[in-house]
């Protein structure tokens, strides 16, 4: 009964083209923002922040970034891990080189640097397509990880080859380093996620997004109607890498604190983020959030059930876990190839008619 468009009259273009045309959706969206920004920080503890909240927020940013490239522009990329590594190492270099600058700007600049690197590796997309391109982006993945492993300048010649984040504060509150508090790191990441989602949503429904989608649906036809493929593809790579770079920067500086590049940003990370995008729904910003939440929560739940409740050995639980994740991905694709976002849309369609579907 609540979920109706009827009686909700739009009197201006702004109102007509808003993201949430139904009042209930708008209320839910504002409610979620209030809960996330004003209520959760008071209750969050270290376990919830580290096991659920931070990975979710950070992976959601990465998934939004990858979704722009794969879901909106149709260029399949398997280099996400490598681009996240660029973001991480860029923040590290910036943090250690300019300690007086606020970490907030470091993260943004790291995103910008990743965007440049992403454009560079996006150049082949002008010549090659489809799976050839997907495999070509693996070159970025392996080359970047190798580079950060082998060139000592990137990790400031530290003996262990690791990078670790020094303590940095935002308005006096530490967000990186060993003395952080759960609510501070949570809010710091949340600001970036909210910003990313807002920018991504508005980019993808404007002229830029329509150009990306035209390229995705058929690039030659798009070119004929006047979409410049060079600009469209490279801008998709740039925007996508920008978000992925931010995610990588946060992943290193706020979440992990210290990383070894092969371990934290390996090929598995690329696949994980791609799974989030696909399970969530290609070409949906909401899907990226849902997919990230699903794949962050699932292992935690499985681990708690198998190890915590049933008392199985951890290695066995780990094997069962990847098996279940794999099976779930397949089941999902068979049942609903368009992902969680599509399920959500079907639910909304049903809700509009409920309780009188005829």
């Amino acid at each position: 009964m609540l979920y109706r468009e009827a009686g909700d009259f739009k009197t201006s273009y702004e109102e007509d083209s808003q993201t949430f045309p139904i009042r209930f959706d708008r209320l839910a969206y504002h409610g979620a923002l209030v809960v996330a920004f004003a209520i959760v920080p008071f209750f969050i503890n270290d376990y919830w922040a580290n096991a659920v909240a931070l990975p979710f927020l950070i992976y959601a940013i990465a998934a939004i970034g990858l979704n722009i490239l794969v879901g909106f522009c149709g260029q399949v990329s398997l280099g996400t891990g490598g681009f996240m590594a660029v973001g991480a190492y860029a923040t590290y270099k910036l943090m250690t080189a300019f300690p007086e600058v606020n970490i907030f700007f470091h993260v943004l600049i790291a995103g910008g640097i990743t965007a440049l690197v992403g454009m560079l590796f996006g150049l082949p997309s002008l010549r090659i397509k489809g799976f050839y391109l997907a495999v070509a982006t693996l070159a970025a993945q392996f080359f970047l990880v190798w580079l950060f492993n082998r060139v000592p300048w990137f990790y400031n010649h530290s003996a262990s080859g690791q990078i670790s984040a020094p303590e940095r504060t935002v308005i006096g509150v530490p967000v990186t380093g060993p003395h952080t508090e759960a609510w501070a790191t949570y809010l710091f990441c949340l600001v970036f996620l909210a910003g990313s989602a807002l920018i991504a949503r508005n980019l993808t429904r404007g002229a830029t997004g329509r150009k990306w989608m035209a390229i995705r649906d058929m690039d030659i036809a798009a070119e004929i109607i006047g979409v410049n493929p060079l600009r469209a593809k490279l801008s998709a790579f740039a925007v996508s890498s920008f978000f992925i770079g931010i995610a990588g920067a946060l992943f290193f500086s706020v979440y992990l604190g210290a990383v070894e590049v092969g371990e934290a940003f390996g090929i598995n990370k690329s696949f994980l983020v791609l799974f989030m995008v696909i399970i969530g729904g290609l070409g949906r910003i909401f899907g990226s959030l849902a997919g990230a939440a699903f794949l962050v929560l699932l292992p935690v739940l499985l681990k708690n059930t198998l190890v915590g409740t049933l008392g199985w050995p951890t290695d066995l639980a780990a094997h069962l876990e990847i098996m279940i994740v794999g099976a779930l991905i397949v089941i999902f694709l068979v049942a609903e190839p368009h992902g969680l976002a599509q399920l959500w849309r079907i639910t909304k369609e049903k809700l509009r008619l409920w309780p009188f579907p005829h």
Partner: protein
Amino acid sequence: MPDQLLFAMEVLLNGLMAGVLYALVALGFVLIYKASGIFNYAQGVMALFAAMTLVGIMEGQVPFAHLINAAFGTDLHVFGWQLSGLVGIVLTALIMIALAWAVNHLIFRHLVNQEPIILFMATIGLAYFMEGLGDLMWGADIKKLDVGLPQGINGWIDTVTFDAFGYGFFIDNLDIWATVIAAVLVIALMIFSQYSKQGRALRAVADDHQAALSVGISLNFIWVLVWSIAGFVALVAGIMWGTKSGVQFSLSLIALKALPVLMLGGFTSIPGAIVGGLIIGVGEKLFEFAIGPMVGGATENWFAYVLALLFLVFRPQGLFGERLIERV
């Protein structure tokens, strides 16, 4: 002859041998891609799974022993028999065929007409599933696989080259066998696809699904057949790599090595897989030999990809791939 040149020649030969093994994995990809348009990421895990199953059957391990022990508190490990390599290979091949049937009927039959990216994702899901399944069934420890293939330095080549150049080449017997077996496999596959009824049906499906359907070829049967052949190729690749470096998780990563091979050779060409494999094998070994020490080594991880990437910029469909003609 100068020493450096001799070393380079030895590296070249070893690269060729490694290339044959890459080609073997790439072959499995090409078969499935040609027949069903599915880019099967799980090929590497299939090789791992096949090798694990082979070891498990030969040693008479109880499947899921760890799981059963954890769930019921029992203490099962082995049935207590030892099988010869040949029996093991036949049984494993049967399991791979059953797997092919299951994969087709449970997954890909339901995904007909979906976008290629969705199919690709499904194979990644399958890869994860099989990786977990293999570990659960047979345990995740590193296993030794010995089906009776000769191993170690080939004495004859060592002596002959020592007499000729004053420097004995180190060539592994296993690599030579792998080359021979790969060659036999490729010839057998070619004869099969050229002269047998099923082989022709296979090529018809690869050419045009709908036309093949309309002349009465069963797509389901062909897909099961193709996945079975790919499973068998995976088994051969698994035996080779497993004998060489033990059956362990890293075996599944050879799939990643096979991808640049595919890009070079083209996704749709069997000769392309072979030539691409050889180029990548030789290229990465020579690059590591010549340039590797200057830039810190371990270039093998990415060299193949960068080579394939640069190559593709000039020839987007690979060496032997079908030329893409696009229409609006």
